[in-house]
């Protein structure tokens, strides 16, 4: 079973977010890391391969520092990495992102399963997996909270508020996983040492045969025209109980139509 895991390098949510003049995310100002939600996808891939056989390849598209996301995945235990790096990519939207990732997956070749996170922690659109599946002509099964593979098919459990669905698809397939599916490991020291020797390839758009006219800010179908910081939270309201505490709470809920 050969698995490709798409991992995104995102600004650390603990740091201060900043935007460039063209309203794209400033990816230089803040330390970045492997999107936490993608760690679940890496963990799931490792579990599948450890229980059987095959190879885990991690794939990222992003600036130079995005190599950090590949490195972390290799330290966790993935076998090899691919980093798509090209100045022309900057500002790409999800349509372009999925184009590039799909071409990279084709070039990696011989793939049985593509795993992604549930959403990136910066863009949070959750659309890349579906777009990837469409471009690769593979079935898409999304939001897996449980996953099993056997006999050429993948079965997932998808939890909704009211019920859980079991969905099956034939392989190869694209599956996005949620943060309920497992508990991602942290790199062991042996993993950290071993990662130094694992192969990482860096590909440009030319290597993938992707036309620069189809990617980057200029090719984006959508454009962010403004960004604003969320207004600071208002201070809470303290109710001192002088016999009327219960009523005050009930009134508070009623005023907000919560009760």
């Amino acid at each position: 079973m050969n698995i490709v895991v798409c991992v995104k390098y995102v600004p650390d949510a603990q740091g201060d977010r900043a935007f460039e003049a063209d309203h794209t995310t400033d990816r230089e100002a803040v330390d970045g890391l492997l999107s936490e939600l993608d760690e679940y996808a890496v963990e799931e891939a490792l579990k599948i391969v450890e229980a059987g056989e095959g190879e885990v390849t991690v794939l990222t598209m992003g600036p130079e520092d995005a190599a950090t996301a590949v490195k972390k995945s290799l330290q966790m235990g993935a076998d090899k990495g691919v980093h798509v790096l090209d100045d022309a990519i900057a500002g790409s939207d999800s349509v372009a992102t999925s184009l590039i990732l799909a071409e990279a997956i084709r070039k990696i070749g011989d793939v049985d399963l593509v795993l992604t996170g549930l959403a990136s922690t910066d863009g949070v659109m959750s659309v890349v997996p579906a777009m990837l599946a469409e471009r690769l002509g593979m079935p898409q099964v999304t939001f897996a909270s449980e996953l099993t593979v056997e006999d050429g098919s993948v079965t997932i459990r998808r939890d909704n508020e009211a019920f859980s669905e079991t969905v099956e698809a034939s392989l190869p397939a694209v599956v996005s996983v949620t943060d309920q599916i497992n508990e991602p490991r942290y790199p062991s020291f042996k993993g950290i040492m071993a990662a130094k020797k694992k192969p990482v390839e860096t590909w440009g758009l030319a290597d993938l045969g992707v036309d620069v006219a189809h990617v980057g800010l200029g090719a984006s179908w959508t454009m962010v025209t403004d960004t604003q910081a969320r207004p600071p939270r208002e201070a809470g309201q303290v109710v001192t109980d002088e016999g009327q505490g219960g009523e005050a709470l009930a009134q508070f809920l009623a005023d907000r139509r919560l009760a």
Partner: protein
Amino acid sequence: MPAATHDLLDLDSLLTEDERAVRASVRQACADLVLPHVAGWYENGDLPAAQVRELVGEFGRLGLLGMHLEGYGCAGMGAVDYGLACTELEAADSGIRSMVSVQGSLAMHALHTFGSEEQRQEWLPAMAAGERIGCFGLTEPDHGSDPASMTTRARQDGSDWILDGTKTWITNAPVADVAVVWARTDDGVRGFVVPTGTAGVQTPTISHKLSLRASVTGQVVLEQVRLPGDAVLPGVRGLKGPLSCLSEARYGIVWGAMGAARTALLTALEYAGTREQFGRPISGFQLTQAKLARMHQAWATGTLLALHLGRRKDEHGLRPEQVSVGKLNNVTAALEICRTARTVLGANGISGDYPLMRHANNLESVLTYEGTEEMHTLVVGQALTGEPAYR
């Protein structure tokens, strides 16, 4: 890369990317396995044996146990990696760091350096994996700083050894599977590998500790303990055996102490920024700032000292007095930082809801074990003057 707010000197820039990865993994392990529970273990003065097993197992999977040793399932990491791990462990609790120090730097190090191939094969892979726990018995009820006068004896009976004596204040002893015990023989001090299940061995717990309460401490009582001839560590005779192990563990303390100090500094910084008195945050008062500035300064210099010793250790090895300078400076500094941080929190500083009294109390043990403050002062004094002043 922007520094964390307390790292004014960008000390992080002195570490390699892989060293930071090692640190991140240990920090994560502590956040998951230790921090949610440690205040409770401390308050109850009880780290249950099942918890110890679980922790040691997880630490084994991570590669923490004997991480700086080569082969036999050990991770083979560098001195700075090991130091960073100690910092993270002790940022959580000195007791947890003690458990790892004793396993790796005392028990496993002794087996690795002085053990026969059979002894190494038997114990090291299982200890590295966290399946077996070790302890290290040097101190006795009547002989602490002066171990040369120890009374635990090993005599030969045919090809067997018979051990008699009591070791006390032994970290991990009540939960250990194996004790490395130092005893007097006709041939000088020798080390013995004593499985704790051997007839005549008892490991009672020492209770009522008011420091290092999230660490298991006990005695190793040996009554007519019969061991096979190959239980002795063949590689060393004399006190340099145990003393060289202690130097290894002490090196970890130089780093570990700065972990406790960092927790104290961060706790005080955060509290000072939110606590208001006289109409503004106490972080705005000059007296509070003086405390914070001095705490930061002591933390930063101690961290630099640890890193210097770590780089030297990797490249040249360390002389004992160099480690003594490190232990002397950093443990005293950490204790001072914790006490100062405690005052910044006022009454809350003495509460178990904050980690400051726990760290400060723990450091009282750290100041004493692995050579007291006075002993290290004498080591440094002798190195400077050439005059031994022990007796």
